[in-house]
């Protein structure tokens, strides 16, 4: 048994497994709340709440009547349900902070996921400027243009 054990092969295998784990980590829990999927997903993809801090979601929900230039207002009950789901699942929603909190200072309340330092770093490195100008992309909020499984929280295809 020991004779068949080949150290260099084992090391290479371990390395490959580790790097694949390290690169295949752009997964977020799919949205489990029907109201959130439906209402937040009416004009844009319903973004996973893990991508913004709690205080950002609060501010977004406070300002729905002028939501990036659109009136996205909702009824009180719907709005309260959505708010509680987003806050509970925010980037800083658990006892440890998600990677989207990297580089976020206490005084910062970003409103766009595309302004989050983690998002910027991930996209600046590999997305050429011309890709953003593609008419099929249209907007940086259109995740599914490139991440075809973004709706399900899978952004591994980068």
């Amino acid at each position, binding site marked *: 048994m020991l004779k068949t054990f080949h150290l260099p092969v084992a090391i290479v295998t371990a390395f490959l497994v580790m790097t694949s784990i390290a690169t295949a980590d752009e997964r977020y829990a799919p949205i489990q709340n029907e109201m959130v999927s439906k209402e937040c*997903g009416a*004009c*844009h*993809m319903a973004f996973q709440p893990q991508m913004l801090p709690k205080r950002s979601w609060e501010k977004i929900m406070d300002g729905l009547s002028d939501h990036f*230039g*659109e*009136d*996205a*207002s*909702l009824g009180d009950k719907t709005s309260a349900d959505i708010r509680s789901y987003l806050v509970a699942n925010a980037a800083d929603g658990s006892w440890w902070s998600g990677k989207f909190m990297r580089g976020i200072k206490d005084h910062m309340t970003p409103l766009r996921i595309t302004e989050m330092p983690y998002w910027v770093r991930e996209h600046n490195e590999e997305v050429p400027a011309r890709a953003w100008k593609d008419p099929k*992309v*249209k*907007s940086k*909020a*259109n995740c599914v*243009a490139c991440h075809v499984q973004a709706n399900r929280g899978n952004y591994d295809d980068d």
Partner: protein
Amino acid sequence: MNFLKKFRCLRFGVTALLLGISTAATTSADANSQLSIIEGYAKESKQHDPKFTAFSAERGRLLFSVRHATGKPETPSCTSCHTKSPLSVGSTRAGKEIAPMAISKTPDRYTDIKKVEKWFRRNCKSVLGRPCTPLEKGDFLTFMMNQ
């Protein structure tokens, strides 16, 4: 064997019939909800203006096509997102597809009054910078029904 064949044939016929009935039932249910929503707007229009007689698809077409530019700069007209033709698939500013506005293309549109009111509330504010009147809503729906 022959019996089995007949049975299969019968089963196919019955399935087709049931499918036909259920499709017809949903279509007419959709049409009924659409008509009752328009009726509601007609009642409101009458209260607004006793001289009101009927909605006009032509006025609805104008409301949809004209460049208003009295609301948000990003959305000067309905066509900014819905394209010039109610038969075409539109696109939001965030790049998400919008099903065609015409009933012939999207038969289950305008069947839920809450949803209809929600989008009139939002989009009239975005495009016109003010709420739509019941007359405008009725005209708009009448135009879309005819498309």
